[in-house]
């Protein structure tokens, strides 16, 4: 029974990593930019949820209506103001820009909120439910469900809508997209908007069960990178698969083998994937 419990925990955590991986892979796939500041948007969305709870008494579930649109706009304008200037640039300036953005956003949060841990108390999704002997953390379960909804919605958007198809064309070949009359700049900005909105959605839910501090982005960002690489860069299904595998490895290894080294195991798999199968499990 305990094995089953560990697997369920791994699946749930995996879905949470997966949705952050999805947001990363969207930007990576569409415009070949590796965004090191993604974790900071997650952190900021958690703080926004905290502020809404602390000053207005909004439950995170209600805050979702605020955080997702606000962060969509945030991502959209990040592209317009900043990223659009480095689209044609070489590798080093691109990396440097996202590093700079990462440091800037982190320390703005640090400046406002300080280094102390903060956490939201008594959210609606709290406690645990028991299904035939398996205990599920309600907050984590809801986060995982929302993550899955995010995946389904994005897949539907990319394959069924006109804008989504245009986005895919842009990802595959910028020149072809231009010749079809697709507004590539708008597509890039849209990809940033959607990506950051996804991360904010995850962040809003994560804030129901995890305390926050300005440097929490690192932990999630690196695991999300591992998920992206494992699944295959630019692939939506790959992000889900990668995230779930990472979640399972972390929980199974941590429970049965060596809890202190569970993250090390994740990184070993990450590096082995890079070396042995750099295209990932699912190739786009």
């Amino acid at each position, binding site marked *: 029974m305990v094995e089953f419990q560990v697997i369920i925990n791994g699946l749930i955590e995996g879905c949470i990593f997966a949705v952050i991986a999805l947001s990363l892979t969207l930007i990576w796939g569409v415009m070949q930019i*590796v965004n090191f500041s993604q974790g900071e948007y997650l952190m900021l969305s958690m703080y926004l949820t905290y502020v809404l709870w602390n000053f207005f008494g909004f439950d995170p579930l209600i805050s979702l209506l605020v955080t997702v649109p606000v962060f969509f706009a945030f991502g959209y304008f990040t592209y317009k103001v*900043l990223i659009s*200037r*480095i689209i044609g*640039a*070489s*590798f*080093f*300036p*691109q*990396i*440097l*820009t996202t*590093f*700079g*953005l*990462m*440091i*800037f*956003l*982190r*320390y*703005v949060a*640090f*400046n406002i909120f*300080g*280094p102390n841990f903060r956490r939201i108390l008594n959210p609606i999704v709290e406690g645990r439910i028991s299904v035939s002997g398996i205990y599920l953390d309600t907050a984590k379960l809801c986060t995982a469900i929302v993550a899955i909804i995010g995946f389904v919605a994005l897949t539907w958007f990319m394959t069924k809508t006109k804008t989504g198809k245009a986005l895919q064309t842009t990802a595959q070949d910028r020149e072809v997209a231009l010749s079809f009359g697709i507004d590539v700049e708008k597509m890039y900005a849209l990809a940033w908007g959607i990506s950051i909105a996804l991360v904010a959605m995850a962040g809003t839910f994560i804030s129901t069960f995890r305390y926050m501090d*300005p440097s929490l982005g*690192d932990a999630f960002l*690196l695991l999300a*990178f*591992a998920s992206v*690489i494992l699944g295959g860069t630019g692939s939506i299904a790959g992000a889900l698969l990668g995230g779930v595998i990472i979640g399972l490895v972390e929980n199974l290894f941590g429970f049965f083998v060596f809890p*202190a*080294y569970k*993250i*090390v195991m994740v*990184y*070993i798999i*990450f*590096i082995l994937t*890079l*070396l042995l199968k*750099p295209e990932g499990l699912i190739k786009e």
Partner: protein
Amino acid sequence: MFHKIQSHLHFLPKNWLTYLPFGCFLIFSLIFPLFFKGSFNRNVMIFIFLYTIMAEGWNILGGYAGQLSVGHVVFFGIGGYTNSLLLVNWGVTPWVGIFLGGTAAAGISALIGLPCFRLRGHFFALATIGLAEITRISCSHWKAIGGAIGITLPMEFNLYNFLWRGKLPYYYIFLAFTLTSILVVFIIDRSRMGLYLKALNQDQDAAESFGLNVFKYKMIAIVISTFITGIAGGLYAQYVQYIDPQSMFPFMISIEIIIVVLIGGRGTVLGPLLGAIIFVPLSEYTRTYLGGLAKGYDYIIIGLIVVILAIKRPEGLVGLRRS
């Protein structure tokens, strides 16, 4: 007008202007302690030296060879740990231990380079991050090397232990190491190897098609680069006299090294020095004058500078603009 001035200075070497900044730096550094007696300002200078050493080291691999290592803190940490463990457990003098630390860092980097140099661009960068995290977490749980508690160096202040109460001995020793690291990069820059590394940075496929053994030169670059970074780790450990995984392996140091080089200009001798001269005082003085550690203004300003520089002057302040 410029040529007119130059014609009056014919007794100087032909490209004396290139050496001018280094000369100014040397003279300024030598006489600085005469005018600044306080430990705060000397501390800032010592950190400029330390960052210059680390940045010159990273510059060989990341600047000249163009391989973005985001895990250089690993080699800094290995250097620091090797030196401290040798001193605490076997009484090996840091005068030797620091170089053994550099050697250990270089040896491990060769083992890392062997498989990882197949990767390019983002993928190499991500692999180095993964390796850095593995090392940091492993060291935090490894009891034999102090675990999360760390190692405190013996408080016997003498030449053998490389430990002093004041800052002045550290100041001049760090300066000597800084000048040596600049000299090493200068020699590489002017040698045939520097040329090969620059070719590799510009276009790996083209360099390979001209018959350059790309792998060999990447390996040479990483070994020299991490040797210097490892030495910096040992020096840092001796200076702060206490090390733990949180201070020797933070992800942020990897990023700071890169930022220092890119501010000045990667693939140049002067760039890392200039970057450190800008970065360290900026962070130390804004921290002091704008309300201490808990405000983070230093990093907000650094973040802004990095972003603006990446967009407006991606080659760094002294780097060459590429067409």
